[in-house]
């Protein structure tokens, strides 16, 4: 057996980010006096440069390297770029917030960049081992980030909970992977797919493993019944971390679901579709109902996130109908569009909380948004865009995201799911509109002027405008999603 040096070119971005992580670690250690801003700027530089590298090394075909453990395709590249993008924005939004609370240590940025690397590994993995390692890298960094505000009891408690439950979920996932290995004799996704296709796999064992895989995926997505950590962790973590937690990892989890289920186990799609159906419907129902009674906006957004992830799953579960794979591309691209749309909306919603927070004050309650229109009509409008978009009001991006997954579900013939989803999103509109109502019709409780650095204001405005603009012209993003999937499948 001769060893061939692997082709590093497709993994250029991963290698770059890994090297930069070490550079950040060492440079901030030695340049202690400017470490905080150095860490931040190096981090942003890394993300931007990685985006250029990813786009630069992008090519339309699917290629493998590192003994087929690494896959490079358009879907991965697109998701990676979206991950850099959302991480960069999340870090930018959070910067002043962290500085106000004196937790803007260089380690924060180091962990963020390592977490990004973990997500990149997940997105580009073609092997269960690398998928798991990527997942652990991301999760470990996230556990630490959640507990980063270590003097806050809530933050450390949230970190602890997330860690223990995450470890349990990792265990379940690993168990599932080992079962899949037992059934097919390989851990490589294409090998698994091949084995299933040839009927060589031991099917009962494979399906047994599938249950655990689904459990692991669902935990990362935060859907019922693996959602219990979501509200507590979203609320407990400092808002800057919640912002990170609610955005890029969702894309990575989406990639994990796609790689494991579609790349690896597409031939037993009908089996996992049924399982996803259960969790998706449960999430949409529970997420929307539970969000209604939340006075804390972070908690409300956590439940809303649960229901959004349920919606996203609707796209994944309507790909194959009775052996007919006709709808698959459409359905999966609608799910991808949903995930991207959710990330964009989520960035803006937590960004608004950060905007209204200041040293010693967390704008966490819905009441803190009272009368925002009087304090800043423009940002009230931005928040209104976000809420409308999340509620699925027409001509915001969220509307098209919901529309496209519902179309996929209807095309697959699951009318009852579509009906439940529509009814639940109508109920869900209530709590989004309540925020709009308090902003516009109630008297402000908190009358302090809004203090925020210019870059946060500008970018948050742009984010709000993007939500509206993408709703007016969703076609481009939809086509990108469809094209990226088409070129990768």
């Amino acid at each position, binding site marked *: 057996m001769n060893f061939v040096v692997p082709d590093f070119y497709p993994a250029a971005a991963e290698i770059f980010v890994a090297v930069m992580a070490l550079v950040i670690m060492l440079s901030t250690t030695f340049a202690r006096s400017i470490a905080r801003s150095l860490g931040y700027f190096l981090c942003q530089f890394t993300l931007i440069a990685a985006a250029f590298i990813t786009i630069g090394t992008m090519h339309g075909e699917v290629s493998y390297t590192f003994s087929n453990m690494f896959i490079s395709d358009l879907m991965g590249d697109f998701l990676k770029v979206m991950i850099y993008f959302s991480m960069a924005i999340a870090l930018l939004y959070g910067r002043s917030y962290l500085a106000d609370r004196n937790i803007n240590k260089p380690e924060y940025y180091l962990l963020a960049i390592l977490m990004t690397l973990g997500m990149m590994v997940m997105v580009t993995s073609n092997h269960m081992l690398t998928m798991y*390692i990527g997942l652990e890298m991301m999760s470990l960094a996230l556990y630490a980030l959640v507990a980063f505000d270590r003097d806050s009891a809530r933050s450390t408690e949230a970190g602890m909970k997330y860690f223990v439950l995450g470890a349990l979920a990792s265990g379940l996932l690993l168990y599932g992977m080992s079962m899949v290995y037992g059934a097919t004799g390989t851990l490589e996704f294409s090998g698994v797919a091949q084995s299933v296709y040839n009927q060589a796999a031991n099917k009962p064992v494979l399906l047994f493993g599938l249950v655990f895989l689904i459990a692991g995926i669902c935990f990362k997505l935060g859907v019922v019944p693996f959602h219990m950590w979501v509200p507590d962790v979203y609320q407990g973590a400092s808002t800057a971390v919640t912002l990170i937690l609610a955005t890029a990892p969702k894309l990575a989890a989406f990639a994990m679901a796609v790689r494991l289920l579609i790349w690896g186990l597409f031939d037993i799609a009908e089996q996992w579709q049924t399982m996803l159906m259960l969790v998706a419907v449960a999430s949409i129902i529970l997420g929307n109902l539970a969000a209604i009674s939340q006075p804390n906006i972070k908690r409300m957004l956590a439940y809303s996130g649960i229901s959004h992830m349920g919606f996203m799953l609707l796209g994944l579960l309507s790909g194959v109908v009775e052996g007919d794979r006709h709808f698959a591309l459409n359905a999966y691209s609608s799910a991808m569009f949903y995930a991207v749309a959710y990330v964009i909306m989520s960035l803006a919603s937590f960004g608004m909380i950060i905007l209204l927070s200041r040293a010693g004050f967390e704008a966490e309650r819905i009441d803190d948004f009272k009368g925002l229109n009087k304090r800043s009509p423009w940002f009230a409008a931005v928040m209104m865009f976000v809420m409308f978009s999340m509620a699925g009001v027409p001509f915001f991006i969220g509307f098209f995201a919901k529309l496209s997954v519902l179309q996929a579900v209807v095309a697959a013939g699951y009318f009852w799911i579509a009906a439940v989803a529509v009814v639940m999103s109508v109920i869900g509109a209530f709590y989004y509109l309540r925020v709009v109502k308090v902003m516009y019709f109630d008297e402000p409780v908190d009358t302090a002027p809004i203090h925020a650095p210019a870059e946060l204001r500008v970018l948050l405005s742009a984010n709000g405008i993007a939500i509206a603009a993408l709703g007016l012209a969703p076609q481009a993003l939809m086509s990108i999603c469809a094209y990226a999937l088409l070129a990768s499948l």
Partner: protein
Amino acid sequence: MEFKTFVFYFLSAILVFAALRVITARNPVHAALFLVLAFFNAGGIWLLLHAEFLAITLVMVYVGAVMVLFLFVVMMLDINLERLRQGFWSYLPVGALIGILLVIEMAMVLGGRYFGLDAMPVPPEPMAGFSNTRELGRVLYTDYVYPFELASLVLLVAMVAAVSLTLRKRKNTKYIDPSLQVSVKREGRVELVKMQAEKED
């Protein structure tokens, strides 16, 4: 019954017993020691499968390093056992029910039907001079170099996380920076001041 089969069942029985005791033992130190026992038996089973290197590593790393560290931690932290056990009995029935059902369901799949010798045949005896360690080492640094490198980064994440979450500078510490001590110059130690012998009016 072949001798190997007897050894397998013997080790497995102890393994299962030890694993059960890990979660049922009242004293955390005992629990940790049972875990050590479980690791030893798992190592034994691996030896039966010709995975000598892994077996040795398991004992060395987990028993020799991790568990010893863990034992120290457990012994140093004074854990209130009664608080930990609160609610244990009230949750036991439901938990046990679900647990037993899960075990039954798992047994349906994991039983001999799919994992018996006909479904999963014994791997062929290795040739003479076959080195488990060498084989592992070879694939680890060639085919698996990517996950190997990534694993090192995971460890880095863990290190950074642990340090950043726990390292604190105490305010009342009496620590003196040696580099400052060394770099002190004569002028810094004693300062000669010129002054009048008498006070002028």
